[in-house]
């Protein structure tokens, strides 16, 4: 971790809940006593565009944005976005890929093609790659929309954040009626770490 700062880059498609994911992780980092900065995207890009939220924490954090090759963890809510932001991952960093596929406009209109087997290609170059169907897992918890929180559970545990802290953060951030489903999704993501066969620890 450069300068003792931990860097999490959260990428996805506008509307997938990158903002909430970043806020939960950031709050948990605050509870651990860190200095924290988060950069969010509001406005036009939120309309189905490529979006990125950035969480940085450590003893003292200056910039709210992460440099290329600096992210300890890239959390991708969609495959194409995982590939797009791969250059931000640091050497031996961890990339988590939700295997969702959402066609961008140029693909929908037939101008460009969606690259094949992206998660396999990424796993081919990045040792610490975890690809999972977070959307499917979230659906079983009650709504596919909680895929973001499944990924938060996975990443939070990998980074040594206490489950209680993440749970509290969710209680404070999501609407009352969605709390139970999201806590379920958090636990699913948390437990998913046990199913991962490779070492995904972050040094």
């Amino acid at each position, binding site marked *: 971790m450069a300068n003792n700062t931990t860097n999490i880059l959260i990428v996805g*498609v*506008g*509307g997938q809940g990158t903002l909430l994911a970043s*806020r939960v992780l*950031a*709050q948990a980092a*605050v509870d651990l006593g860190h*200095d*924290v*900065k*988060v*950069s*969010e*995207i*509001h*406005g*036009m*890009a*939120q*309309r*189905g*565009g*490529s979006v990125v939220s950035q969480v940085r924490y450590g003893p003292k*954090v*200056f*910039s*709210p*944005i992460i*440099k*290329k*090759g600096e992210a300890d963890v890239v959390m991708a809510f969609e495959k*194409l*976005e995982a*590939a*797009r932001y*791969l*250059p*931000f*991952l*640091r*050497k031996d*960093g961890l990339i988590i890929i939700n295997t969702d596929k*959402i*066609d*961008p*406009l*140029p693909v*929908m*209109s*037939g*101008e*460009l093609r*969606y*690259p094949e087997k*992206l998660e396999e*290609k*990424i796993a081919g*170059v*990045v040792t610490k790659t975890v690809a999972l169907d977070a959307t499917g897992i979230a659906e079983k918890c009650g709504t*596919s929309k909680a895929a973001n929180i499944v990924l938060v559970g996975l990443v939070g545990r990998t980074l040594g954040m206490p489950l209680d802290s993440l749970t509290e953060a969710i209680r404070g951030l999501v609407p009352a009626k969605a709390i139970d489903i999201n806590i379920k999704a958090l636990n699913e993501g948390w437990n998913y770490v046990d199913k991962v066969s490779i070492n995904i620890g972050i040094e």
Partner: protein
Amino acid sequence: MHFQKEVKLLKRLMIGNQAIARGAYEAGVTVATAYPGTPSTEIVDNFSKFEGVYAEWSPNEKVALEVGFGASLGGARTLVTMKHVGVNVAADPLYTLSYTGVNGGLVLVSADDPGMHSSQNEQDNRGYGKFAKLLVIEPSDSQEALDFTREAFDLSEQFDTPVMLRVTTRLCHSQSLVEEGVKQDRPLKEYKKNEAKYVMLPGFARLRHVEVEKRMASLREYVENSPLNRIEWGDRTKGIITSGVTYQYVREVMREVSVLKLGTVNPLPEKLIREFAAQVDKLYVIEELEPVIEDQLKAWGIEVIGKSILPLTGEYSPELLEEVLLGVTPPAAYQLEESIPPRPPLLCPGCPHRGVFHVLKRKRLTVTGDIGCYTLGALKPLGAMDSTLCMGASIGTALGMEKARGPEASRRTVAVIGDSTFVHSGITPLIDTVYNQGNTTVMILDNGTTAMTGHQDHPATGRTIKKSETSRLDLEALVKAIGINRVRKVDPLKTGELEKALDEELAYEGPSVILATRPCALIDKSVKTPMFIIEDKCKSCKICIKLGCTGVYWVEEEKKARINPDLCQGCGLCAEVCKFDAVVEGGSN
């Protein structure tokens, strides 16, 4: 609520905009006005939630500042917020407000957007400080956003000036830890009639201009010792002058250098800068966008490096500074040999604007556009927009096209404008169209909200910022009162109706308005069944794909279109355009 009490002692994460709202509240502000605009919107949104304050969404930024002036005149501490281009709209009152000065402290937040995350230009509003003779201050994280906002109200009253708090997207939308302070109670200041100060007749204004120059002289003295500026001494071979969030980037990549961090960016502290410059070997100014600080230093004869090596365009980043100042370009650890298709923003599934742009494209009309979600109608595959300039420009642009190219062109031209934008600044050009006998056909895309900025209310929604009921501006009656004799309402998702309306209104000799009315898909609470494509009936024509909706996708192997029921909002537009009745309601693929 004991939990709340506990956390109050701790630091809280806040985006810059929330911290500004908190700072204003602590400073005893009781009136806040704004027109929504990214990246400024969350300031007054948050402020409106405090107890015992008045907040409003004004119809536009000019009105917001005028109401702000009135509130200040009336003795209240007043916050007015807008995005950078909004200050252009408010520039008329702003320049003269500088002459009148204030009664209750008045702070104008200008939220600039370097990098144009959500804007049509990236103008640098520090320039307003210089030309309107304002004190401009710039925080660099959320804690400073709160502290500087509080301080700004004291300074506004102390120097009898509106103060501009200049912030940028990365400050507005970045969270960092904030320690809240105690709210001050500010009794309303006494209102005293003072026409020589507040009535800007030439005779009075001439005297006020002299006062403004005196004020600038006092401000120039103040900034020399202002706690908002500080020198951080380090290695003196390099000295860096910077402000705002750029300070954080500098510190991220250069912990050892000496830094003069400016909190006051207009006027600039000349003595402090000279003192700093004299003690470092090489002096740099690092500022996003315009060389505002650099030019002033050069005018003072101080040798400095800035825009000769750093860009005038776009947002800065630690990466950029590392590359330009340290010559470091770390190679990416990982990269795929794959070309990644871009993902531009697009209209949401179920968006009523999609029907409009589908029809406009099919009819190959010239479309003068405006500012809002519907500006996305300019992008492929819809690609049905010819111009977008600023808020409210669509109608005047269409009239101008007609006056240049004649009535034949007006039969091929449509102005497209949203409901909130129409109220903001579309009414006067429509009056011009009637007055100067234009034929323009105007489509008001009425989705009942200010959608792009996150669904704020406006006069035509009939609800205030606090969601309470109020008198609703009737757009149809308004348009008629202006003198438009032909006004009709259509459902934008009924393409046949829409096409018929367009044909008739374009053919009509005279101005007309089509109200395309349907709520924004993101606020429409009615539950609809997702659509379904009957495979055998799909003839692979791709007309549904060309709507540019993420709810419909193409399966190349089967050469068929399919619906994604998770994304589909059941608006039925794809069924409407399908010539083979292949799209039906319900079921799943």
